[in-house]
């Protein structure tokens, strides 16, 4: 600690089917740091074989990393975590010495044509509406919390967003911080049972509670320490019939067991929650039960 602590390699993880547990364990090691946004990372770690549907998103994430950046792939199950950590460390050294970089995969241009109306694209009626660059301007809509009809914002989040299970693409409509509608565009990647390990589940929740160091300790199999850990999860959050609420599940994870829970359909579970509450609820389910709760969209 202190002045001598080295610069940890900051890695943004794009986790493919079956690789959640190995990657989470890898990035909890000393000398590695899991970036919460691609902007904060130098290395993009692509773990596993990505399905074709995620290819474009992967390219987009790649381009979001600031220069200098390097992509590393971890696709062979035989390659040990030690070997990958070694590779990352070597790459990070090159990166810091300015000896490695990659150029953009996609052209740096708006994802869609200009579809606005008028010289400034404001389109719609008056100064509202319109779809400049294919992104719809926010329009007002029913508010489920307090009835004040303010603007809604719809966005697609995933499949590599670090607060969501890997692979899950959600289309959420937000009004302020409140989710008013959510639909699963693409279900999370299937993960084997080791991703349900209680220490990993606990770490996911601890990260959301702002306890980074305890989260790393938890992954490394040690007791996470912190004040007000269970109490910080609101009591009635994510209550499921016969399976308690998010706070109970966190307590179970911390006590070392991974309860089998059947999560309900996400498009019914999430609306009405604030974004941070929704993320806590999602993290309180083991990946296997999220997979069961996210129906595959029909012919999307």
């Amino acid at each position, binding site marked *: *600690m*202190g*002045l001598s*602590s*080295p*610069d*940890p390699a*900051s890695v943004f993880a794009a986790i493919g089917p079956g690789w959640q547990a190995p990657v989470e364990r890898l990035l909890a090691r000393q000398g590695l*740091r899991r970036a*919460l*946004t691609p*902007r*904060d990372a*130098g290395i993009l770690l692509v773990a596993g074989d990505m399905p074709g549907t995620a290819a474009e998103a992967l390219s987009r994430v790649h381009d*979001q990393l*600031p*220069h*200098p950046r390097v992509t590393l792939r971890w696709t062979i199950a035989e390659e040990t975590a030690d070997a990958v950590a070694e590779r990352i460390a070597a790459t990070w050294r090159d990166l*810091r010495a300015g000896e490695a970089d990659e150029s953009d995969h996609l052209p740096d241009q*708006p994802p869609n044509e200009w579809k606005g109306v008028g010289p400034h694209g404001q389109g719609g009626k008056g100064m509202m509406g319109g779809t400049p660059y294919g992104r719809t301007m926010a329009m007002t809509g029913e508010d489920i919390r307090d009835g004040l009809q303010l603007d809604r*914002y719809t*966005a697609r989040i995933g499949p590599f*967003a*670090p*607060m969501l299970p890997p692979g899950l693409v959600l289309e959420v409509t*937000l009004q*302020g*911080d409140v989710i008013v509608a959510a639909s699963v565009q693409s279900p999370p990647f299937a993960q084997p049972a080791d991703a349900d390990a209680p220490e990993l589940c606990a770490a996911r929740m*601890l*990260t*959301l*509670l*702002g*306890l*980074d*160091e305890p989260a790393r300790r938890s992954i490394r199999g040690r007791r996470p*320490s*912190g*004040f*007000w*850990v269970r*109490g*910080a*999860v*609101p009591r009635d*959050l994510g209550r499921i019939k016969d399976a308690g609420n998010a706070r109970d599940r966190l307590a179970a994870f911390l006590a070392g067991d991974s309860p089998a829970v059947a999560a309900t359909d996400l498009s019914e579970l999430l609306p009405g929650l*604030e*974004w*941070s*509450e929704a*993320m*806590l609820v999602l993290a309180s389910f083991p990946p296997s039960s999220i997979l069961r709760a996210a129906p595959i969209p029909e012919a999307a």
Partner: protein
Amino acid sequence: MIVLLALAVLGTLGLGAVLVVAMDGRIAQLAGQFARQRIETEAPDRLNRDLAPVWYLALAAAGLSVVPFAPGHALLDSPVGIVIWGTCEALTIVTVFLHGWAPNAPFPLIGAYRYVAIALPVMLPSMFVLIAAALPAESLSLLAIVESQREIWNVARQPLGLPLFAIVVLTLTLRGPMDFADAADIATGTSADESGSARALWEVARAAMLVSASALAATVFFGGPLGPALPGPVWLWIKTAALVAAFAWLGRRIARTTPSRMLTILWVVLLPLSFLHLAISGVIAL
């Protein structure tokens, strides 16, 4: 004397910020970040994006400039020193909001909104605590507040003050349980679309604000430069360093609840508590 005090303010802020970053074990990390590319978002508010970290640093410096480094000597010897500090707190909220507003991206904006919703009610306990500290001194000047603690420190006289002010400090420096602006569930919130030097500068400014806020807490609750044998500035530095360590430790250890729940706690628990604190302090000061 003025030059000396100005040097003391800048030196404390600079060295203190380095110390804070070192305590988080992130010196090399931030140094590395300064070398990386700074990303441009689509249609940002460039002026405010560039100004936000500068404002943050300037506010930390302005806040520290009212702190007396020796009994009777502060760079900004104002009769309303404590109100000046309160103003720096209020402007910090504006700065963090602008930091989230400027990139023109959803997660930073959510972070900015959340932070304003949480930080505005935090201002109320902050004001009550600071006014309570001014009561025994019968003055809004920090010099007088230091003098009033010659016999007994405010931390003993007003036991609720320091815990309430700790919440204010954590809010102002975006740390731990009060870091609603740069939280993990919104991909580091107001910083989510920043990279390279912009990101590193923001971290430095946060560290500087922690130094400034801890120095103020040391002045208001621990008698600032008062102490036996050693000269005033040394005592202030010792107390500030101890408080910096304490606040940073608390920030790492306390879990962060959801914004709406924190809002309820702030209005329903902490606001009446700070009322009570002010009333008790007032009665004692009589």
